């Protein structure tokens, strides 16, 4: 019962947050110069002032701001994100076409960064004077310092131009024929470099934090108890220490979700990955307001879902969180 109430509470917060995001997005887009009428006029090769007014009236752009905002929120709540005059397609359709590619990239990069980051962190905490330790420190420094597009381009030059191990661009090879498995393998092949590029920044973050967290936990009283029970070093580390060292890392990963998405925009551009990032870039250049708003809305949605998931994982790991409302 209690868990039901908490979930309900979290969902309410999430919904309120989403509306706040909508208001903010719409307001900001309105403050920016240029509107849909400009886009339409541009696509028609120019229009006079009278025609522009007509277009504005038709799309409700002559209404007071607050009315426009209300109408927009109403439309979004009925799952209508508007129509893109630039792409000549409904925004929802545009987004759903590309969302899977971005989600695939983002989730793969997060999982890779978390799994390898935590493993590296644990290993280097267990061997404070070993090579892994220097590797983590060095890698973390590199991961923080190197800009994503630079790492991406470097990897491209290295592993698809000089040594042609991986494809240069895109998400799949249209010429490949075969069943589901063959296609999946092809996509995985295309994913390698983008995922490494995006994951490496976060891998650096997570490995450093898990190392610090693990070092602290390994010195705790309950780890001493676990040793006093005669458990093996593996059980002590993986069963008793790791589960206690995870919460800070999970929290950080949740907080980084939005950073991973914005990182994905850059990575998609470098690797011509057909996701939301590319769509965002083109629609910004084209001042395609409905599409931009739609993408912002979906990004916020993904971040909010990511945070809800983080919350859920934390509850699974730590019974003390479960006790709280």
């Amino acid at each position: 019962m209690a868990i039901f109430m908490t979930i309900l509470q979290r969902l309410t917060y999430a919904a309120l947050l989403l509306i706040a995001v909508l208001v903010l997005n719409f307001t900001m887009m309105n403050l920016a110069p240029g509107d849909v009428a400009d886009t339409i006029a541009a696509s028609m090769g120019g229009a006079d002032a009278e025609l522009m007014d007509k277009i504005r009236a038709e799309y409700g752009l002559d209404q007071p701001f607050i009315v426009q905002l209300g109408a927009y929120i109403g439309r979004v709540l009925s799952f209508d994100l508007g129509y893109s005059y630039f792409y000549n397609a409904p925004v929802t359709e545009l987004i759903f076409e590309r969302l899977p590619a971005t989600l695939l990239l983002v989730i793969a990069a997060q999982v890779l960064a978390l799994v390898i980051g935590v493993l590296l962190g644990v290993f280097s905490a267990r061997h404070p004077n070993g090579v892994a330790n220097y590797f983590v420190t060095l890698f973390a420094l590199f991961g923080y310092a190197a800009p994503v597009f630079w790492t991406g381009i470097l990897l491209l030059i290295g592993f698809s131009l000089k040594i042609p191990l991986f494809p240069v661009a895109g998400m799949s090879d249209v010429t490949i024929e075969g069943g589901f498995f063959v296609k999946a393998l092809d996509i995985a092949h295309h994913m390698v470099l983008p995922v490494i590029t995006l994951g490496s920044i976060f891998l650096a973050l997570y490995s450093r934090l898990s190392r610090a967290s693990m070092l602290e936990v390994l010195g705790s009283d309950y780890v001493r108890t676990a040793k006093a029970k005669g458990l093996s070093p593996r059980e002590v580390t993986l069963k008793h220490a790791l589960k206690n060292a995870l919460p800070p890392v999970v929290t950080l990963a949740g907080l980084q979700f939005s950073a991973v998405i914005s990182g994905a925009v850059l990575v998609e551009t470098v690797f011509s990955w057909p996701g939301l990032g590319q769509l965002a870039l083109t629609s910004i250049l084209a001042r395609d307001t409905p599409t931009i708003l739609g993408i912002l809305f979906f990004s916020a949605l993904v971040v909010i879902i990511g945070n809800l998931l983080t919350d859920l994982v934390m509850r699974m790991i730590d019974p003390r969180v479960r006790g709280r409302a």
Partner: protein
Amino acid sequence: MTEPLLKIENLRIELALRSGQAPVIDDLSLELRPGETLSFVGESGCGKSMTALAIMGLLPEKVGSIAGGRILFDGRDMAQMNDAQLRSIRGNEISMIFQEPMTSLNPVYTVGEQIAEVLRRHKGMSKQAAWARAIELLDAVRIPNAKSRVSDYPHQMSGGQRQRVMIAIALACAPKILIADEPTTALDVTVQAQIFDLLRDLGRETGTAIILITHDMGAVSEMADRMVVMYAGRKAEDGPVAPVISHPRHPYTKGLISCVPHLLAKLTEQRPDLTEVPGIVPALASFGADACLFASRCDMADDKCRSSRPPEVAFGEQHSACWKADQL
């Protein structure tokens, strides 16, 4: 006289300090007999916990090491055992409970799992059998409603209850030796008495020998059969509790006892801990000196005390390392 269960011979433990290797325990010998309760007493920093951790093979990693001597358990030298051999003894034949019940249990597992785990590890019990036994053990350490409390997490229990859970874990495999390192220091007075009662009763029922480390002289006189008085990493005096308390053969023991006004007060009454003997314990770096380390605080000290280490002298079952033991 029965064969000792645990026999420590000339144990030397060194710590890697910034200034180099320094002994924290120097030439310590003692015996623990089956089923008896032996108490370690002495001021903070004199090496009681270090000795206990050495027996467990749990000296602080990369800092503490056994530099000499033997720890004979059932005739085998634990100081020479490898980690796998030690692990099969730890928590099984020798187990230990610690001073801080609030933090000694793992917060993310149920208490039942934490008890059942040792049974699976050492007794090869199945999940169900171990869980059922965990409930019996919780009951044995007098936690009411054991059946429902077994799935509680540590944060749902009080300090006293957590220490009971620690005792249940320690006694799960029916060990030959239980080391209790200041098991009640962090608890309030009425709970302290309950924990001491529990330890004493369980010790008697199961025939487990107990090494009780405590600052509470009242608890020593009530619970222990014999006691070891430690000072600055060495044994000052040891022997059966009654003669040591009524006729101490070392000025340090005398000082400790005179600090406690009502030694034989009831366990349930509040008693002062060992208060200070005037002066302070010498620095860790001087623990290896060839002298009586108590000399700076002893009003009987003379030049001989300051220039050579006193040997152990026997008075029946009582031993004292003092040049003037026979004058006391």
